[in-house]
């Protein structure tokens, strides 16, 4: 608008800085908006310049990547045993949450999960024996994410564990997750021992075949529409899965009754699902994983396809930078702690469950689940604000996942690492907090801002990929 046109227009002012100026503007009747500005994150100047120079190409790549995400169509299509099902799974491999980590650097709850898994697998008789074996080098560790899988908290997957198989029906790729064990003393919080082993055995021997038969009978369960419905029912399918679990229960129950030869077992299976509000979590994670994996490998794209934590590091992967992990220390959440526990008891953030946020759910859609904010000491308007903030760092809105309280606006989807760094706004993640000692379990819950470092490194990684010789990048689906 030329200066002379400005003189003829109604003044509309964006105020960046002193809020008192906005008050003055309002008093004199001008339209204005106050920016709650914060300094940008310190990032490598060369990387920033390279990314800025390639802005048009990046936009194009992101448009492509985000389309792959939005068109994704995850459905639960079956179950199998990890060893036979998950690509690359072997007898001496244990999968874990987050970016790669050695036994030496593993946090307490993850070590506990490994011990519990080795006991469950019969590879050790005592925890001490299991620990020795884990440290011996005979057991290999690898991130779930590098095998098309995801796991909450410690995210431990061992060879004989049964897993859900989720298919992205639009793009053909598969994702995997174990079944959720429930709350209390559970493997994903690092608990081990006879009680845990017994439950895992029951899940493998009775829960798994019962569910597998029911799913086979149903053919497929459309997870995308189930998540969409759950968002309308007060879930964000990360820290609140009550509605989604109920919907799953409704879908499964008749099929279980029809396929299970033993009515007592059928009842127990249904009671188990009914008794665990988080039963759907592992499916919402696998659905998100299947959705995002389809958007991997779009050269030049600055969109985030993985955020995951192993309790030591927080890792990020971008669509445009292949399998490379960008990591920084995982933060200890400023959470609301259960009575008797404090931040001093807390383990740094852990779990693959941030895949839901990466997919626009969880903390990104928290406006759909105000109950959670209350749970962590906030108020309903906080939830709206959190979600609105996430629109500022995302590339698109997911029309399938709508948020009723925002007039059915689509979930903020496709985290753009450029926007994260430039605006200093970090992804908000709903998180459960594990005790730092193995086996104690959950000690709190909260809403956490992702740390800066992985995103700053990812931006540099992206800049590097731009300057690298343009080679034909294969789509690296984790199948």
């Amino acid at each position, binding site marked *: *608008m*030329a*200066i*002379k046109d*400005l*003189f003829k*227009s*109604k*003044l*509309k*002012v*964006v*105020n*960046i*800085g*002193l*809020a*008192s*100026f906005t008050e*003055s*503007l309002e*008093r*004199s*009747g*001008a*339209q*204005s*908006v*106050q*920016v*709650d*500005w*914060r*300094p*940008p*994150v*310190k990032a490598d100047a060369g990387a920033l310049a390279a990314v800025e120079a390639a802005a048009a190409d990046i936009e194009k790549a992101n448009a492509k990547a985000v389309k792959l995400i939005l068109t994704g169509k995850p459905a639960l299509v079956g179950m199998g045993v990890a060893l036979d099902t998950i690509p690359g799974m072997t007898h001496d491999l244990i999968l874990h949450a987050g970016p790669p980590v050695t036994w030496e650097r593993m946090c307490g709850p993850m070590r506990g999960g490994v011990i519990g898994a080795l006991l469950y697998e019969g590879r050790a008789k005592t925890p001490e024996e299991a620990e020795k074996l884990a440290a011996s080098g005979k057991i290999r560790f690898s991130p779930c994410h590098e095998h098309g899988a995801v796991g909450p908290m410690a995210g431990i997957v061992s060879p004989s564990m049964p897993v859900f198989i989720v298919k992205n029906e639009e793009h053909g790729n598969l994702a995997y997750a174990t079944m959720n064990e429930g709350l209390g003393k559970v493997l994903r919080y690092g608990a081990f021992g006879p009680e845990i082993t017994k439950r895992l055995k029951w899940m493998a021997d009775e829960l798994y075949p019962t569910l597998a038969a029911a799913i086979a009978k149903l053919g497929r369960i459309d997870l995308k529409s189930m998540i969409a419905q759950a968002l309308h029912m007060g879930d964000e399918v990360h820290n609140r899965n009550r509605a989604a679990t109920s919907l799953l229960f409704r879908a499964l129950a008749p099929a279980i009754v029809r396929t299970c030869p033993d009515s007592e077992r059928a009842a127990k299976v249904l009671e188990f699902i009914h008794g665990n509000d988080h039963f759907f979590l592992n499916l919402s994670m696998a659905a998100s994983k299947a959705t995002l994996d389809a958007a991997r490998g779009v050269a030049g794209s600055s969109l985030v396809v993985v955020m995951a934590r192993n309790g030591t590091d927080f890792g990020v992967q971008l669509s445009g930078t292949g399998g490379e992990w960008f990591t920084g220390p995982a933060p200890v959440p400023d959470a609301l702690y259960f009575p008797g526990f404090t931040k001093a008891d807390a383990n740094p953030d852990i779990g693959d469950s941030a895949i839901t946020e990466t997919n626009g759910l969880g903390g990104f859609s928290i406006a759909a689940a105000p109950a959670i904010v209350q749970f962590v000491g906030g*108020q309903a*308007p*906080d939830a*709206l*604000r959190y979600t*609105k*903030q996430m*629109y*500022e760092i995302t590339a698109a809105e997911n029309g399938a996942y709508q948020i009723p309280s925002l007039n059915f606006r689509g979930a903020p989807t496709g985290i753009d690492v450029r*926007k994260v760094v*430039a*605006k*200093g*706004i970090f992804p908000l993640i709903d998180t459960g907090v594990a005790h730092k000692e193995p086996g104690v379990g959950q000690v709190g819950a909260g809403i956490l*801002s992702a740390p*800066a470092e992985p995103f700053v490194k990812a931006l540099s990684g992206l800049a590097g990929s731009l300057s690298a010789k343009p080679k034909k990048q294969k789509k690296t689906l984790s199948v």
Partner: protein
Amino acid sequence: MTVKGLIKSGEYFDSVTLMIVGRDVTALKGVQDAAVVMGTQENKAILKAAGLLLPEFEKAGETDLLLAVKAESPETASKVLAESEARLLSVRSRSDSEEEYRPKSFEGALKALPGANVALISIAGRYAGEEAMKALKAGLHVMLFSDNVPLEKEVELKEFARGKGLLVMGPDCGTAIINGVPLAFANQVSRGDVGIVAAAGTGLQEVSCILSNESAGLSQAIGTGGRDVKKEVGGIMFLEGLKALLEDPATKVVVLVSKPPHESVLKKIGAAVKDSPKPIVAVFLGAEGKTLSRYGMLPAGTLEEAALLAAALSKGGDAKAAGKKLADRERALSELAVKEASQTAKGQRYVRGLFSGGTFCSEAQLVFQELGISDVLSNAPLAPFKALADALKSERHTLIDLGEDAFTVGRPHPMIDYSLRCRRIQAEAQDPETALILLDVVLGYGSNMDPVRELAPALRDARSTAEQGGRRLVFACSVTGTPEDPQDKDKVSEGLKAAGALVFPSNAAAARFAARVAEYLEGE
């Protein structure tokens, strides 16, 4: 004495919020000193000088918030630290609890306010340039209130803006009025047909207020920031603003306000106004009137004169009317000066001017020079006046700009926070050589909302201090503002008079009065 502190990583508050919290906390019982600042190098240096730099602060970065308290006991220090944190939190939750979502970025703001046409930017200078460039790229005009924007950045922004036909007002532009809307520090003035381009913020305020009070009005008032008319920037925006006003059908008279522009810039201004059918009044404080006349401009010696000239022209009168008005008043001022000066005690010899507006300090010096008062020192001296050895200590006739960096680092501008000036008034009152204290009071949006509450007790205390020493102090004030300002100029003037001050219609008039008093005292 105990010093305690803490670091809050990744917490960001704007500098004014921090300064207000810092000031309030310092005023708490048992606190000797306190600081609530972002962990920049400059702030760390300030903390170090104040003995508040804790070892753990060394590694803090500029996105870390530092809180430090020096108190009489460890318990007090801890308590005050917690109190500071709570106050910051309450600021945050206040803005957070508002129903309206506040976007976190410029991009988000554009979505929230489609069709936005001006970006008003007042964040720290090292970030401000980037945000300004974003706004320009999005086609918005920019008012850059922030200072400490690098010169190269200013040139880059202005050249880019000129290419796109956009305005960049600032950096360090304190005031502008566009379409009648006051931006940043500006006054509620009448609308009319006088357009202003100013490279001096307080000067713009003074001219626009006097115009308004003279029943003339403003079409547009464009600020450019003081550096614009220097050689390096080349007057880019001064010229763009001037051209826009010359083309603007709603503008009949143009007023140019600045300290003397660089020769090369003045030449360009001259070329731009040549053949203009609109009268151009120029107040380039300290510039040769003859040069301006040669370019066809009407030169004014003071801001007030410029405003009176423009008001007369706007109302269809001619320049002579303004001259006569000033000449008439001059006689009254001289008589008043003699009357007041003759009542001072022996030994009271000097004028002490304590200015919150830098332009006013310059203008006052020019008035003193014009009237031949030579024994004047300043922290911002205009040749031939010399610099004060110590800005904190007045000598002979002293005219101080309290808005200079030495006074403002780490605290709000003296137009907002009067505490420094009030302390200085008391110090001057204790000096047996002080005869007159000269003050400017600037009203409008952004300024202190109740200056009388701050100044009246300070004036009364100063008066009684002097009286205890058998002296009589004269207080001379100007009030820059309008009755429509949130503070109400008339109310403020009455309040100051009630506190014993003589209130003048302009800074130039107050300075002339003070200079006449000085003249009388020298002759004694």
